[in-house]
């Protein structure tokens, strides 16, 4: 069985109300980088809630790691469009937040405090935030806050990282920088990624597989494998192969919007 598996999943937020997503089946292999794109309100974020166990499906089954999802799992890390850092904590303390919650870190926190701190510092250094550990979030730029937010999502070594439009609020240059950061993190330390985004270039550049979803109720329209060789450099975004992937995806989204 795949690492993440959706079996004909539907979800409506209210009993008998309109469905946010309908009849979704998909498989994600361990270590795969998946991107989900679609127009606004197509239920992309709903997918994330289902996988993280924040919402149970109305119909169908969601399996993560071979087991049906029944509630929040500690093996998932999440980051959103807003960095959502806690303003009263330093960057370092923000990054260490999951270690205060997820077992087994939580109970070992007292004894291994120093070690955990080193881990967080190393993680911050990996995303280029060395020297900013003791700054408060408001002293960081938007891009830096988002880097810290991704560090927080990864600190407890989750096997599945879920990103909900994480770069949506950043300017184009910062966004491309963070693509590379995410690519490097993923290549250094393998984990499964599910990235929800509006940005087709982002999806094609980062993902192994891209799913396009329809308007509400969200269904999966196409699954497209991105066979561009890895490691990918930003240069790849200017190649014809890249452009044709983006083009095909763009056309399918165009069809969604017309209907």
């Amino acid at each position, binding site marked *: 069985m795949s690492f993440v598996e959706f079996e004909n999943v539907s979800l409506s937020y209210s009993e008998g109300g309109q469905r946010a997503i309908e009849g979704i089946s998909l498989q994600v292999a361990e270590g795969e980088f998946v991107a989900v794109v679609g127009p606004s309100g197509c239920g992309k974020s709903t997918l994330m809630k289902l996988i*993280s166990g924040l919402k149970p499906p109305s119909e169908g089954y969601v399996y993560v790691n071979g087991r049906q999802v029944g509630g*929040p*799992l500690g093996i998932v890390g*999440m980051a*959103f469009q807003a960095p959502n850092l806690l303003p009263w904590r330093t960057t370092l303390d923000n990054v260490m*937040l999951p270690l205060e*919650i997820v077992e087994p870190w939580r109970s070992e926190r007292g004894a291994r405090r120093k070690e955990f701190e080193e881990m967080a510092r190393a993680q911050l250094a990996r995303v280029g935030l060395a020297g900013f550990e003791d700054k408060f979030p408001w002293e960081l730029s938007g891009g830096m806050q988002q880097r810290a937010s991704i560090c927080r999502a990864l600190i407890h070594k989750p096997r599945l990282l879920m990103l909900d439009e994480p770069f949506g609020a950043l300017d184009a240059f910062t966004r491309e920088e963070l693509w590379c950061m995410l690519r490097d993190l993923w290549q250094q330390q393998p984990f499964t990624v599910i990235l929800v985004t509006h940005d087709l270039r982002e999806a094609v550049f980062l993902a192994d597989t891209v799913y396009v979803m329809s308007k509400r109720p969200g269904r999966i329209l196409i699954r497209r494998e991105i066979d561009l060789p890895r490691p990918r450099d930003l240069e790849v975004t200017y190649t014809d192969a890249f452009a044709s992937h983006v083009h095909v995806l763009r056309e399918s989204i165009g069809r969604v919007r017309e209907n």
Partner: protein
Amino acid sequence: MRLSPKVVFRLAPWLLTVFLLVCWEAICQGFEIKPFLFPAPSLVFKTGVEMFDPIMTHAIHTFLTTLAGFAIAVLVGAIMGALLGSSPIIYKALYPMLVGFNSVPKVAFVPVLVVWFGIGSIPAIITAFLISFFPVVVNVATGLATLEPELEDVLRSLGASRFDILCKVGLPRSMPYFFASLKVAVTLAFVGSVISETVASNLGIGYLMMSASSTMNMPLVFAGLMVIGAMGVVMYELFALLEHRLTRWANRSQNAAF
């Protein structure tokens, strides 16, 4: 000589106070208003100095009464706020009652307290409590209830319990609201205790003013008012300072006076 903007900023409240006192003095002197109607500030000050000892005795009594009521209000307010803010059902159930209760003028409630507890400090403490706990409840509840859903999702997806979320995020996040409410609550507590003293006590600034006005000793009444005002300002500033120190992360504006 030109004062730097910073100095002007610091002096502004003092300058305005002095200006208003001068206007007040000028009006009283200029129109020769009778002191038993509207005493000039100089006369009020003179009375204050002459009656310093009795005023201080009563003021300290009022101050302690107020603080006692305020302390209970902070404790009860914070606990109720935490309950209301973390449980939508408790919020829904309790809020209308709280609003209704807060709309009742507390002065109307003092006679009831006198029947229950007799004349003296206890009705004053309770009135101070009743009048000042509401802003604390509302602010703490608001701070908790306006938690960003994404932030809650981040924690819930990690498997955090409601209690975890309350401790790690809810309570720290509501601290600025809490401290902001303390500033308001402490001034309201003075209102409560003085109201009760004027109706049912034989100690405290409220009582002093009541008895002074019954003998038309208007300068003493005004001296009492001034003392209450001064105590209110001092306590307000004290809590503003505390707020500034403890929730620095929430007050980042360069121009914030506090």
